[in-house]
C-alpha cells in the first residue's frame, strides 16, 4: 500500500474568507503578530500497490480532476512520511 498527501490551497490571488476569519480570531485569543492565514485542505490517499511514478501520476490526476479546482486552487502531491 502506498500513501500520498495532497495539499490543496486557494491560489494566492483568490480571496480566502475562511482564512480571514481565522486571522481575525487569533488576536482576540491573544495571539499577536500574525500577519496572514490561508486555509486549505489536506487529503491522505491510500492506493493499492507500492509507491511508483505511475501511482504518483495517478494521484496527481485525482488532484486535478476532483480534489482541487484549478481555477481557484493549487495542489501539491507528496509521498506520505509516517
Amino acid at each position, binding site marked *: 500500500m502506498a500513501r500520498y498527501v495532497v495539499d490543496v490551497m486557494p491560489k494566492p490571488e483568490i480571496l480566502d474568507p475562511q482564512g480571514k476569519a481565522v486571522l481575525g480570531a487569533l488576536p482576540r485569543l491573544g495571539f499577536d503578530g500574525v500577519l496572514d492565514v490561508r486555509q486549505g485542505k489536506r487529503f491522505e490517499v491510500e492506493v493499492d500497490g507500492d509507491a511508483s511514478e505511475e501511482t504518483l501520476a495517478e494521484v496527481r490526476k485525482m488532484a486535478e480532476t476532483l480534489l482541487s479546482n484549478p*481555477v481557484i486552487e493549487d495542489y501539491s502531491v507528496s509521498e506520505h512520511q509516517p
Partner: protein
Amino acid sequence: MRVGVVTFPGSLDDEDARRAVRIGGHEAVALWHGDHDLQGVDAVILPGGFSYGDYLRCGAISRFAPVMTEVVAAAGRGMPVLGICNGFQILCESHLLPGALIRNDHRKFVCKDQKLRIENTRTPWTSAYDEGAEVTIVLKNGEGGYVADADTLDRLEGEGRVLARYLDGNPNGSMRDIAGITNERGNVVGLMPHPEHAVEALTGAGTDGLGFFQSFGAAIAG
C-alpha cells in the same frame, strides 16, 4: 416545450423551478441525478439548494453525477441549460462555464431582494427581457462570489457574455459585480440569484424572474 429540472440529493428549489416552468407556459419534467436520461426534454434547469452535501467544493461531486454526462453532451449540441445558484456552481465545476464561485467575501449567508441589470438578452433564457432591464430577484447564497482571472473576465465582458450584474452594491464579493454569465454559444447560462422565486406576486418580491421561464420558448419559436 418540455423543460427538465434535475433533482440532486440536497436540491431545494427543484419544485419551485418546475412550478416556474409551468407558470411560464411550458411542461416541467422531473429529472433524477442518478439517471443517464434526459427524457427527451428540450431544455434543462439545474436548480438551487445544495448537492451531495457540497462536500469538497460546491458542485464538485454533482459534476460527476450520471445525469451530468447527458447534460454536458446536450449542452454541447446546443440545448439550453440554466444553472441557478448551486446549478451555476455545478456548471462552473463542469467547465461548461468559466470561473468559479467562492464563499461570500463577508462570510455571511445572504438572503435578500436583489436588484440586477440584464445585460445580455440574446440567450434562450433572457430573450424576453429588454437589454439593460433592471429587475429585482431573490438572492440567497453563502458561496456566490464569482471569481475568474483577469483575462477571462475581460473576455466575458468583451464578448458580451456577462448576463446580469448586481446593482446598488455588491452582495457577495463577485468580481466586476457579475451575477450571471453565459458560454460562448449562448445556450448555457449560470445565474446566482433565483428567478424561480420571483414569478408570482403572492409569494415573491414580484414577477421579474418570470422572463427566464418564458424566454426560451420565444427564442426557439422565433
